C-alpha cells in the first residue's frame, strides 16, 4: 500500500534516535490481562488491516506491506514515546504496551493521525472488554465492529481525493524555539495536567472561543513569557506561533483511518508589544476562523499533493528524495512553530464501555526540533493536557499550568519523573 500524502515526510525525516509518533492510552478499572489483550489485538487488526503494515523501502518511495503477524505487546516503560526502532519492532509501525490497568498504543505517524489512532484504541479496548467481561458494546463508526469486514473507505488517501488545483508556498516566518539542557540519555519527560472540562468549557464560552483556541492562547502567552525572560532586546524577539493540527474530517467528507490532518500556526509578534490575554484570544480566534476554511485548507492539501505528483520528483531515487525532504522539513517543518498543541477534543464512549474505562490520555512523541509539545484529550469530564519534553527544565509546563490556575482553572499534575 502506498503511503498517504502526509505520511511521506515521516520515513524521510526519521533517524536512529527519532521517529514521529504519538501515544493513546486507556486506563481501565482492573489490571490488564495480557492474553486477552493479544486476542483482542488480533481481532482488531483483522478489522483494521491498515494498522498491520510494515514499512518497506522501495526504489522511488517507501511503501507499506501488510503482515499477518502481530505487533509485540510489551510491558510499559518509564519513558514512553521514545523512538520506535522499526527493526526491533518486526517492522511494525505501532506497538501496544500495558501497565497495571492501562492499555497504551503508540503509533508511528506513517500509519495514521490522532483521530484514526483513537478509533483503533477504542475498538481494541471494546474488543478486550467484550472478551474479558462479555460486555455487549454497541458498535458505531467510532467503535468499530470486529465481525465486519474492513471497508475500503477507511484506507483511502483522502489527501489525493480532496486535492484541487491552486497551490501556495509553504514558507512562513521562523518562530521562537524553547531551548534547554537536552537530556543526554534521551529520556522523555511527560507531565499530565488534568482539569475539570466543564470549567474550561465555561471559561472558553465566556470569551466566545473554543477550548482549543483558549488553550492555544494560554500556550502562546506562556512561550512569550519565556522568550522575554531569555531574550534581552525587544528587536531580537521572534514570533511565537503554535502548531495546531486540524482534523480535516470535520471539514471534508472522509471516513479514512489514515492520516487526514493539516496544520495552522496561530501566533503573535512580540516585537510589537505586550499582548493581553483577551488580545491573544481575539487573534487566535479570528486566525482560526480565517485559516480553517474549506478553501484555504484545500490550497494547503493541493500544495502537498502536487509536490507528491510532480514528475521530476517522482523519478528521483529515494535517497535523493529523502535528502531533499529532510532539507525542506528543516526549513518549513518544526522551524515555523514554537511548539505544538494537538487537541483531540471530547471522547465519548458508549455507556457499556465507559463503566470499564476510567481515563484516557493522548501523548505526543517528541518533535523533530522543538523540545516541548502538548496534546489534549477530554474524557469523562476531565480535560488532560500531556506535555512531552526532551529537555530537563519544565519551564513551559510550569508557565502554562500556573497561568491556567491564575485564570481560575484548578489543575492537578502527574508526571513520569523517577523517584
Amino acid at each position, binding site marked *: 500500500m502506498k503511503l498517504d500524502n502526509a505520511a511521506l515526510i515521516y520515513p524521510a525525516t526519521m533517524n536512529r534516535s527519532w521517529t514521529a509518533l504519538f501515544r493513546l492510552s486507556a486506563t481501565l478499572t482492573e489490571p490488564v490481562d495480557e492474553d486477552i489483550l493479544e486476542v483482542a489485538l488480533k481481532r482488531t487488526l483483522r478489522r483494521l488491516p491498515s494498522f498491520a503494515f510494515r514499512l518497506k523501502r522501495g526504489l522511488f518511495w517507501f511503501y507499506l506491506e501488510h503482515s499477518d503477524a502481530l505487533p509485540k505487546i510489551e510491558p510499559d516503560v518509564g519513558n514512553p514515546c521514545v523512538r520506535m526502532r522499526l527493526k526491533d519492532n518486526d517492522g511494525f509501525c505501532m506497538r501496544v504496551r500495558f501497565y497495571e490497568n492501562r492499555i497504551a498504543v503508540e503509533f508511528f505517524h506513517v500509519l495514521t493521525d490522532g483521530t484514526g489512532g483513537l478509533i483503533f484504541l477504542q475498538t481494541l479496548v471494546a474488543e478486550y472488554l467484550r472478551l474479558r467481561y462479555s460486555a455487549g458494546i454497541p458498535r458505531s463508526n467510532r467503535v468499530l465492529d470486529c465481525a465486519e469486514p474492513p471497508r475500503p473507505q477507511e484506507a483511502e488517501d483522502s489527501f489525493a481525493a480532496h486535492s484541487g488545483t491552486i497551490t501556495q*508556498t509553504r514558507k512562513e516566518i521562523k518562530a521562537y524555539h524553547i531551548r534547554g539542557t537536552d537530556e543526554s540519555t534521551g529520556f522523555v519527560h511527560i507531565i499530565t495536567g488534568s482539569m475539570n472540562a466543564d470549567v474550561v468549557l465555561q471559561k472558553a464560552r465566556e470569551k466566545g472561543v473554543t477550548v482549543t483556541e483558549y488553550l492555544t492562547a494560554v500556550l502562546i502567552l506562556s512561550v512569550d513569557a519565556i522568550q522575554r525572560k531569555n531574550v534581552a532586546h525587544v528587536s531580537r524577539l521572534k514570533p511565537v506561533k503554535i502548531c495546531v493540527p486540524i482534523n480535516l474530517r470535520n471539514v471534508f467528507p472522509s471516513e479514512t483511518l489514515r492520516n487526514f490532518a493539516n496544520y495552522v500556526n496561530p501566533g503573535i509578534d512580540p516585537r510589537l508589544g505586550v499582548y493581553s490575554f483577551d488580545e491573544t484570544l481575539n487573534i487566535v480566534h479570528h486566525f482560526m476562523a480565517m485559516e480553517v476554511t474549506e478553501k484555504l485548507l484545500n490550497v494547503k492539501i493541493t500544495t502537498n499533493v502536487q509536490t507528491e505528483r510532480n514528475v521530476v520528483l517522482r523519478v528521483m531515487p529515494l535517497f535523493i528524495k529523502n535528502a531533499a525532504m529532510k532539507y525542506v522539513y528543516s526549513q518549513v517543518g518544526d522551524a515555523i512553530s514554537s511548539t505544538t498543541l494537538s487537541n483531540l477534543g471530547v471522547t465519548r464512549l458508549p455507556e457499556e464501555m465507559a463503566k470499564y474505562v476510567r481515563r484516557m490520555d493522548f501523548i505526543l512523541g517528541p518533535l523533530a526540533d522543538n523540545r516541548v509539545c502538548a496534546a489534549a484529550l477530554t474524557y469523562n469530564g476531565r480535560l488532560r493536557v500531556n506535555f512531552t519534553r526532551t529537555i530537563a527544565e519544565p519551564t513551559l509546563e510550569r508557565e502554562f499550568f500556573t497561568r491556567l490556575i491564575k485564570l481560575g482553572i484548578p489543575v492537578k*499534575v502527574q508526571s513520569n519523573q523517577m523517584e
Partner: protein
Amino acid sequence: MSYCVNCGVELDKSEPRCPLCGTEVINPAAMQEEKPSRPYPSHVEHLDRRIDRRYIASFVSLLLLIPLFTAMLTNVMVSGRLSWSYYVLGGELIAFTVLLLPMIAHMPRILYIVIDAGAVGVFLLLIQVMNPGDWDWLLLLGLPITGLVALFAWYLSWLASPKCRLPLLIRFTFTLAAIGLLVVGIEFFIGLYRHAIAWPQWSLYVLFPCFVLGSALLLLNRRARLKAEIRKRFYF
C-alpha cells in the same frame, strides 16, 4: 490532596515532588500515608548511545597506517631507502587532518581551517625538501594559493553556518564574489611566480560572469513576488 506551595497546582498523590518546579511535597497531614504506585513503571527503555564518532575516527586513523606501512616497506625494498613514501605520508596526513580530525576533536571552525591549511603547507614543504632547488614556486605559488583557498573555505563555511543571518540569495552572491576574487588571486600569484604580472587576464573570464550572476541574484532578491513564485516551484 497536596498542593505545590510554589506553583499552586494540585499534585497527584504518587508524586515525590512537584514536577513543575522540583519543590518537595509539603503536606503535614498526609506525611504518614503510603504513596500509591507511580503512573509509569520504573523500568526505563534503554536507548543506544549515539554512534561514537571519535571511536570510529580513531579506528580509521589506525587503519591508515596500513597503506603507509606498505608504501614505506615497498620503498625500502625497491630503493633501499625512504623516498617517495614520504609523499604517501604527507597525503595521509592531509586526509587525516581534513576528514578525521573534525570527528575526533571539537574546536572552533577557524582552527580547523588553519590546521588544514597547515597540513597542506607541510606537504608542499615536504615536496620542496625532497626536491632541493628553487624555493620560488613554494613561496610565490604554493603557500599563497593555499592561504587563499583556506580563506575562501573559511568564508564559505561562515556563509553556510546557521549564525549567518543573510538571506539565501545574498549568500549566493557573496559566494560568487568570493569565487571571482579567488580566481583573480590565483592568477596574481601565477603572474608573480612568472615575474610577469600581466593581471587580470584569464581570470576576467571567471570574474565577469560571477559579477553579472551576482548582480542578477541581488536584483532577484529585491523582487518578493518573483521569489515567492520560485519558492513555489521548488516546493519550499
